[in-house]
């Protein structure tokens, strides 16, 4: 074989940054081929997908709105993944956070209770997400259950639990039997940043603060060191005196809290009420965002914006090109595949070897 993978002496810093870019380029080529197979002009399709949304202010705000929950969830998940702990259930924690915060909004609907309402809703959302995330964490620590399976399965529990609430006890009496709560009061809603001119809301600012806090946590604190160490060398972490179990509980709680916070912000912000469609898969897409962003908070911010772009572009493409919206999901799947594949280039390099083997087998 003339091409071989050769281990590098040190991890390549250049490739660590370039790998997501290479992955994006390869994904674009692949999706362009897909467009061609579907009988669309690949260049036009790529334009509609990736450039057009950037050309007007309204779309830009939509991208930020879409990126807000993705970034917030992905930053939390990155803490788990860096420590080799696999929280796959952010979607469920997102829903439970949305439900917990909404409870207060539904209870106080129509009563003028004061400015403390929204902050308490946000706290309830974060708390709910954290507690819900602690279920798989506790199962792993005390019973050895795989957190991958338990956290994933709890997504469906949360999903159906919310479904029951919005179809049953919390259904809007004036809602024509649609499964939705009443629209939240203004006091229970996340304010938009530009009054009457787009949907960009204060949640995006919270997401930026989260990115900064987690950057500091990972880079400067002993807790961040512990998270990185447990992931990089578990035996050395035990030798260092850090408890892996404590870390499972901590990272699950933090990622659950961030997912829950994202959930209640989404419901109290752009959506404005609780209904079964509040998530549209943010918790799963955030997994792609986390890896595309190299499990680095700033990288995740960029990756979140990029994936939000594919959502917005996908909606545009659905209208102007008549391609199914699911193509966006296909693109995201291809992207994750290439990101993970390109990551091997950080530790390995490809070398072309001219074999000197030609006169070989004569003697043997």
């Amino acid at each position, binding site marked *: 074989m003339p091409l071989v993978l050769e281990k590098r002496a040190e991890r390549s810093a250049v490739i660590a940054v370039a790998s997501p870019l290479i992955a994006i380029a390869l994904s674009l080529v692949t999706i362009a081929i897909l467009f061609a197979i579907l009988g669309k002009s690949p260049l036009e399709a790529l334009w509609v997908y990736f450039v057009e949304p950037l050309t007007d202010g309204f779309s830009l705000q939509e991208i930020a709105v879409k990126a807000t929950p993705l970034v917030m969830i992905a930053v939390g998940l990155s803490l788990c993944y860096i420590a080799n702990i696999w929280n796959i259930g952010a979607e469920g924690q997102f829903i439970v956070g949305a439900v917990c915060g909404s409870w207060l909004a539904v209870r106080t609907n129509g009563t003028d209770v004061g400015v403390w309402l929204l902050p308490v809703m946000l706290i309830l959302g974060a708390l709910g997400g954290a507690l819900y995330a602690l279920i798989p964490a506790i199962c792993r620590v005390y019973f050895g259950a795989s957190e991958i399976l338990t956290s994933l399965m709890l997504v469906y529990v949360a999903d159906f639990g919310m479904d029951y609430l919005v179809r049953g006890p919390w259904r809007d009496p004036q809602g024509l039997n649609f499964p939705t709560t009443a629209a939240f009061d203004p006091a229970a809603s996340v304010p938009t940043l530009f009054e009457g001119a787009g949907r960009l809301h204060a949640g995006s600012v919270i997401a930026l603060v989260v990115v900064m806090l987690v950057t500091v946590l990972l880079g400067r604190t002993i807790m961040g060191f512990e998270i990185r160490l447990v992931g990089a060398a578990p035996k050395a972490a035990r*030798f260092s005196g850090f408890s892996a179990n404590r870390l499972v509980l901590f990272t699950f709680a933090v990622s659950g809290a961030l997912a829950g916070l994202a959930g209640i912000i989404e419901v109290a912000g752009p959506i404005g009420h609780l209904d079964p469609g509040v998530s549209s898969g943010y918790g799963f897409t955030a997994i792609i965002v986390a890896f595309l962003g190299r499990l680095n908070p700033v990288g995740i911010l960029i990756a979140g914006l990029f994936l939000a772009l594919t959502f917005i572009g996908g909606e545009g493409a659905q209208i102007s090109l008549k391609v199914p919206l699911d193509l966006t999901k296909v693109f995201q799947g291809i992207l994750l595949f290439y990101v993970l594949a390109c990551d091997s280039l950080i530790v390995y390099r490809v070398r072309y070897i001219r074999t000197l083997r030609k006169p070989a087998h004569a003697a043997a």
Partner: protein
Amino acid sequence: MLDPSPQAGPGRSEPLLSAVSISKRYGDFLANDCIDLDLYPAEIHALLGENGAGKSTLVKVMYGLIQPSGGELRWMGQKIILTGPSEARALGIGMVFQHFTLFENLTVAENVALGLPPTESFGAISQRLAETARIYGLPLDPKREVWRLSVGERQRIEIVRALMQNPKLLILDEPTSVLTPQEADLLFVVLDRLKSEGRGILYISHKLEEVKRLCDTATILRGGKKVATCNPREETAASLARMMVGGEIGEVKAASDRSATIPRLVIHKLSLEPDDPHGTRLEGVSLEVRGGEIVGIAGVSGNGQDELFAALSGERRSPGEGTVVIDGEAAGLLDVTERRCMGAAFVPEERLGHGTAPRMKLSENALLTGHAASGMVKRGFVNKPATLAVVDRTTKTFDVRKAKRDPEAASLSGGNLQKFIVGREILREPGVLIVSQPTWGVDAGAAAVIRQALIDLASRGAAVLVISQDLDELAEIADRIAVMFHGRLSAPLEAAEATREKLGLLMGGADTEQPSAEQEVKHAVGA
């Protein structure tokens, strides 16, 4: 004596296997640089060199495991290309690896059958195995499961497995590193017999006395290059060492005014179930290490040393708080960090992955053991300059060679990384230091620095416990030596009484059946 061309002599008319100008390049690193080597029948040829000299690379090339970047191999004069070990075996080259490739849950016969071509029935293989083992005096029960066997017995499986293919040339990689002196003697008898049958043997080692005793020819590698081919019997251990190292090795000088004070580390009747099903149970281990003293624990690896280290470091808690006492305080139930805060420090055997995180910078690896007790962390935040200061101080005091100020741990050579790890602990001036295999796989220069640092630490009043398989090392630095066997610890011998023979018997299990705890207590009372 430094004649680089192999001596011609009777019976050496044609070499079995010749390496002609073999080179192997890994990226920018030249692991083998134009090495010539001729292996003759009925000859035991030593391949000598320090760790990293290129011995393993050369041998892997000769066994077809890796392809050379340059040069060629000749088998009985014919040029050959080995694309894999099976081709090497088909020619008649057998190999016994340093790290065994055995399945623990399978029996001896099953392991051997897995390595042979599937043309023979299992019954026939078992029979041939028993016969080969009997002929060469390597007793083996084909029906035993491997995990029940000692390391020496496991090596026998590898040797018998190689012999069953009737090799003309047998390569052994550091075969005695896991054996007691007595087991090594038995191995030498077998090797002499193989030689008398006309087989060629390539014997890889860095133990000079052994090579002088056993081998007819020695080729010495240093830094990927061949330094010389000579007759080891005409050389002294010192002259061989000079060729291996390329200079004189600093003598370790024992501090003469060192005297033992009060016990600073006490292990009292420590029994512990292993957490790994193939681990070793610790049974009533008792020992006292006094301030100013270095106590060595000898023994073949796998006899409970790893378990003992984990119990002493606090990576595993002991069943009772009084089983481990540090500076008069019961520490059995405390964790690693709490024990470090009491002034204890630990150096594990495995450098990469246990003592350090390989892909983290040295400053972060300084934090790894220093985070609790040395001002590197303030209110949860890491004081980066303080961690870098530790790296700088360690670098300066212990002469750690590295490419930049703060590289990843994995990029350092074994010896330099070990100097960093030992230095990182010693600079904290621990009252109790427990170190496992301090110089395993380390070049002679670094080993001397590390041993000297351990002696100096003890002479400043610390209690030092050294777990080592290397009897020469223990003889050099330890004041008393105990032996670990099957999870039990013998009563310690004064270094002067601890001859290789006595230690070897203890390492083979003699004399440890009687409970050692009482002896140790008596010893302590008498002291």
